[in-house]
């Protein structure tokens, strides 16, 4: 009510001033803080000090001062500016070129005092709207800030939780490391035993040259192996030892029924060495039971070591993932932390956009193909508020070279959501992203010019 009153009073005063034409002309387009430069009534010193002109030449629609200061109320000076008082709304300067150009720029219509434009004084309405808007904004801000506080608290908890998780993981990793070392030690021991045993065994086996084996198989010592001799000396190992059938023996002899030494060396000897399902009877039986035990132990140790190693790697990966996540700048109060691991979607025309903060942005067309619009890059806001923008880079490559990238602009809102996506140039996307955590406790908005 008080506001309204002071306004109408001022309007009245302004109207009264208009009657005293000359004086009003001189004052046109000047803000109150500049009025002191125009107080002298005989001459006028250009504000840049460049020139003195008679006072009649102020606002006489001819530019005398280089800085345009003699024509604050006309369009005469290329560099001039006109002050819209905009009572009831926000005062501001417009370039002199917008004075009397037929377009209403000042809501108080003061810029079109000599044109065909029919400007209504809309300051009061604008002010109302602005006030409503600002109030809405303030409500949003208040609400947003409260939510933000919660999110900060959650963020702190989350941060602690993550830290604890990290510690826990690190503990597990340490334990695993100890276990790992233990397993490695044991594996080494078993392997040594096995090696020692094998060394003995190899000595025996080492003597088994092709000739001695041939002799071993050649029961009748006629210098040639027969089917019967093979059936007698060789077995098939399959769960248990099986005798060779005649066909199998013939097959082993390469389809023949006799085999001399050179032929044996070129065929069956290799089979015996590589195919462990065919063995010489008695040799298996002859294997050292200690060796067998050691072998099994070594296998067991190796597999359990592998399991532990895998677990260790997994844990380390989790740790490094978590560390990486924790090295991201989540704001001074970790308020952006909760966005991590969330995703937000928006449909624009035929596309669905998906923003997973600190991870990636994708675009999916109704046709179905998904395209990366960039992976998390960095914060890229103003130096004053670096958290007002995120950049996602190195998305899918583009036709003209380079790759898709997305700039996400964060604004204050009461919920966290995508509000708009634009592609001003090919492959360069801009996403509006609203979230309470972007709310900044600012000083009151630059006030509406409601009182003098």
């Amino acid at each position, binding site marked *: 009510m008080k506001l309204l009153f002071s306004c109408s009073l001022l309007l009245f005063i302004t109207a009264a001033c208009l009657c005293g034409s000359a004086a009003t002309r001189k004052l046109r387009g000047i803000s109150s803080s500049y009025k002191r430069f125009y107080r002298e009534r005989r001459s006028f010193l250009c504000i840049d000090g460049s020139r003195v002109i008679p006072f009649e030449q102020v606002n*006489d*629609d*001819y530019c*005398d001062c280089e800085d345009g200061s003699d024509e604050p109320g006309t*369009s*005469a000076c*290329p560099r001039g500016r006109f002050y819209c008082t905009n009572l009831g709304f926000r005062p501001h300067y417009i*370039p*002199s*070129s*917008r004075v009397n*150009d*037929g*377009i209403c720029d000042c809501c108080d219509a003061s810029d079109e005092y000599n044109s065909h434009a029919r400007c209504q004084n809309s300051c009061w309405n604008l002010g109302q709207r602005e006030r409503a808007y600002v109030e809405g904004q303030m409500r949003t801000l208040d609400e947003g800030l409260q939510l933000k506080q919660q999110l900060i608290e959650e963020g702190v908890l989350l941060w602690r939780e993550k830290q604890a998780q990290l510690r826990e993981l690190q503990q597990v990793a340490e334990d695993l490391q100890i276990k790992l070392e233990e397993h490695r030690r044991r594996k080494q021991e078993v392997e040594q035993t096995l090696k020692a045993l094998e060394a003995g065994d190899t000595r025996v086996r080492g003597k088994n040259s092709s000739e001695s084996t041939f002799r071993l198989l050649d029961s009748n010592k006629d210098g040639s192996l027969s089917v019967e001799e093979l059936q007698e000396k060789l077995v098939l190992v399959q769960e248990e030892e099986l005798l060779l059938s005649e066909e199998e023996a013939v097959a082993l002899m390469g389809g023949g029924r006799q085999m001399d030494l050179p032929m044996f060396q070129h065929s069956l000897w290799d089979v015996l060495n590589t195919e462990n399902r065919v063995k010489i009877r008695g040799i298996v039986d002859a294997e050292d039971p200690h060796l067998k035990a050691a072998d099994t132990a070594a296998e067991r140790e190796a597999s359990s070591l592998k399991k532990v190693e895998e677990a260790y790697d997994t844990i380390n990966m989790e740790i490094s993932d978590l560390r990486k996540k924790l090295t991201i700048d989540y704001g001074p109060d970790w308020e952006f932390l909760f966005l991590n691991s969330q995703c937000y979607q928006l449909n624009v*025309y035929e596309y669905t956009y998906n923003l997973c903060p600190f991870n990636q942005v994708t675009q999916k067309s109704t046709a179905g193909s998904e395209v990366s619009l960039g992976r998390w890059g960095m914060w890229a806001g103003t130096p004053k508020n670096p958290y007002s923008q995120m950049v996602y880079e190195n998305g899918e490559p*583009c*036709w*003209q070279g380079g790759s898709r990238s997305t700039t996400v602009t964060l604004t204050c809102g009461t919920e966290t959501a995508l509000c708009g996506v*634009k*592609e*001003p*140039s*090919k492959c*360069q996307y801009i996403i509006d992203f609203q979230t309470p955590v972007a709310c900044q406790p600012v000083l009151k908005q630059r006030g509406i010019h409601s009182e003098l």
Partner: protein
Amino acid sequence: MAPVLVLWLAVFLSGTWAVDKGNFKTCDQSSFCKRQRALKPGESPYRALLETMELTNTRLTLQLINDNNKVRLLLELYRLQGNMTRVKINELKPLKPRYEVPDVLIREPPTEPLSLLSQDENGVVLSLGAESQRVILSARPFRLDIMEGRDVVMSLNSRGLLAFEHLRMRKDTFSYKVTSTVASVWNNIKRVFSSSQADPEAEKKEEADPAAQPEAAKEEEKDEDGMWEETFKSHTDSKPNGPSAVSLDFSLPGVEHVYGIPEHADTLRLKTTENGDPYRLYNLDVFQYELYNPMALYGAVPVMLAHNAQRTTGVFWLNAAETWVDISSNTAGKTVFGKMLDYVQGSNETPQTDVRWISESGIIDVFIMLGPTPKDVFSQYASLTGTQAFPPLAAVGYHQCRWNYNDQEDVAAVDAGFDEHDIPYDYIWLDIEHTDGKRYFTWDPHKFATPKEMLQGLSDKKRKMVAIVDPHIKVDSNYKIHNEIRSRSFYIKNKDGGDYEGWCWPGSAGYPDFTRADMRDWWASMFAYNQYEGSMENLDTWNDMNEPSVFNGPEVTMHKDAMHGAWEHRDVHNLYGFYVQMATAEGLIQRSGGVERPFVLTRAFFAGSQRYGAVWTGDNAAEWEHLKISIPMCLSLGLVGISFCGADVGGFFKSPNTELLVRWYQTGAYQPFFRAHAHLDTPRREPWLFGPENTALIREAVRQRYTLLPYWYLQFYHAHRTGEPIMRPLWVEYPEDPATFALEDEFLIGRDLLVHPVTEEGARGVTAYLPGKDQVWFDVHTFQKHNGAQNLYIPVTMSSIPVFQRGGSIIPRKIRVRRSSSCMMQDPYTLYVALNLQRTAEGELYIDDGHTFNYEKEFIHRRLSFANNVLSSVNLAPEAQFSTGSWIERIVILGASKPSKVLLKTDDGQESQVEFDFDASMSVLTLRKPGMNAGADWNVMLQ
């Protein structure tokens, strides 16, 4: 806008960044060009049959006969008003009519009587009026020589290259066999009963040379490759009419400089073509065109100017088929040593340029413009094809374009950006993406859901919009435009009689037959506000792809055997774009009830296109060389009547670096059509995206354009009245100064402004040639005075745009630069009076409402002149009515001395003193606020 996507992908993938020359024919690959070019200079087989001569008051006709094949031609010769000669050659009795280009001439050119000076068996001499100009027609062989006194100005067929492929029957057809048999029987009968009166000359020849007839027959039989069918890449041209080419040579004694025949990305001065292909005129959508070569581009104006220090002439070859122009010169090939040898040996061979025109079909219809001054040639050509359309003032302002502004929000943001950065503009443009699926005359239902709201928003700021309307129409039975065209059978037909379909932006598309007047009327009616939904008064039109571009057609254009009624596409090809723009401009005029001047930009054009709007140089690239070539390309267009020319500022393909972008704005601000444009795939480049310093540089360039709008508008008015180019080569104003003949890095706007833009990367200075021995030039920024006839080195910084005002001129400016030209309508003028050595100056002031056809009666046109220390304004059009609120706020006199007082005398007899300021160091006198109305009579006296 862009050309062929398919090609684009192909080229892009292959990683090259230049035109794929293989997509376009060389002369060798174009069978008629190859055939004709194989014909070498020598004795012409053509003979004039003098006894067939008929001379009436308006024309001379006689028959020519080709002694090799006995085919007769009909020569028509006219003397046209305004010192022109028209030579028309057609078959005497063609099998079927041959195409004669309609609609390009603004009327049947008025003739003047020809008189016979003398005649004997060797030829005739005709007088071309009083100026000792004659035409000598020699009979055997046929040739024409145009003489002035004892000098030959131009000769036709002096090298014997007149060729006329007469229409014939295909030999393997039944009807041919019948006809030829009958003909030979008839011949024999004729021989037996021949009477001397029938054709004595021909008969004599036959008797004297009995071998002639059989030989001719043999010649007849010789079918060369490509006469009846021709294949290029995968496309076959069925050529049902067979060979039909025409060719003629012109010799220009004393000429070393020829210009014109746009559109080519080449030097202003045309080169000789002996060592390569001829210049080609065939409207084509050339993807990433290459510079400095004679390949065809989007438009074709078959007009060539020839110039030497004594005389300027022109040749207008009125033919719309594919055309090749060969240029040779007897001096071009000579080395310095050769020239010296000539000198030592006393060889007095005069320099000569020989030109040969070859067209695929139609007739020979040539207008020889005899000047003798450059301006005479302009007015001669203008009297044939008309002058530049007088555009609305807004179109002379700055245009902001991009493929594409994405949606209404985007448009609003860009519009607001101009206000925020205080840069004026008049038009914002929408490329193809604004449509609903490339269906022209529609809007994308999501992105441009409320076009009228958008247009109203622009209108509230006194700004306008251009939306694209291309001539290819999506084949889609749910599309009104397509259905109507189809139901009216307005589409061009393929050779088999069905609707021709080609591939373009929308996919499968039909091409309306714009050569039909009823089709054009219908098309024009589609621009009515109730037809073109979402359109408003401030929406104008852009016709792109009107070569026409057919992605899957031969050379990315239409098959030559497609049919326009009775005519083949071959006959009319170069006219298509001309007609599209004609119909569109007519539509914009009609929608306003004939009140508003239209603005239509076209990519393809032909002779006469100047009558319908503006052209631009197509899809250039963001490269320094492309910036440079914008000057000769627009100069060449201006010389042949198309003044409203510009290049995409910034370059269409690729992304300019900041320096190039700024330099391009600075250059574009001084070219007639000033529009920034960018390819879809390039990053945004609105003027404020390159840091505050560069924003300021671009702002300043655009503001310079706007301060000069009164001068620009006056130039457009002149171009509209006279046909003189706006942007003109220096030789047009200094025709006797050979130093100007090949200049193409600087130019004049009208007579009074000389511009030498900076087009070199990292330039520290430019050297400008200031012409005129007894002339002075004033730097428009510093007011420094320079003498003419010198090369002046000008150091430059990034803010420099070297521009000079001619001493002796008066240029009106409006220095209150506002949001748009329309915001500045009522603003006061500042007159810049630049004195010459005689301390005089002259200029003009032109004012009208800026947008309607009322200018024909309602305007202010005043002569401003300064002499004897008096500056006065005199009415040049006392019968015209117009009143303006604009007044004279300032008069700046360059090269002045200090007066003791200055008096203003207005027409009511009142005298008042005017305050002034004198800068002795630069000799600049500034008169403060004289205040008289711009439309009034007044005198300002310096005492």
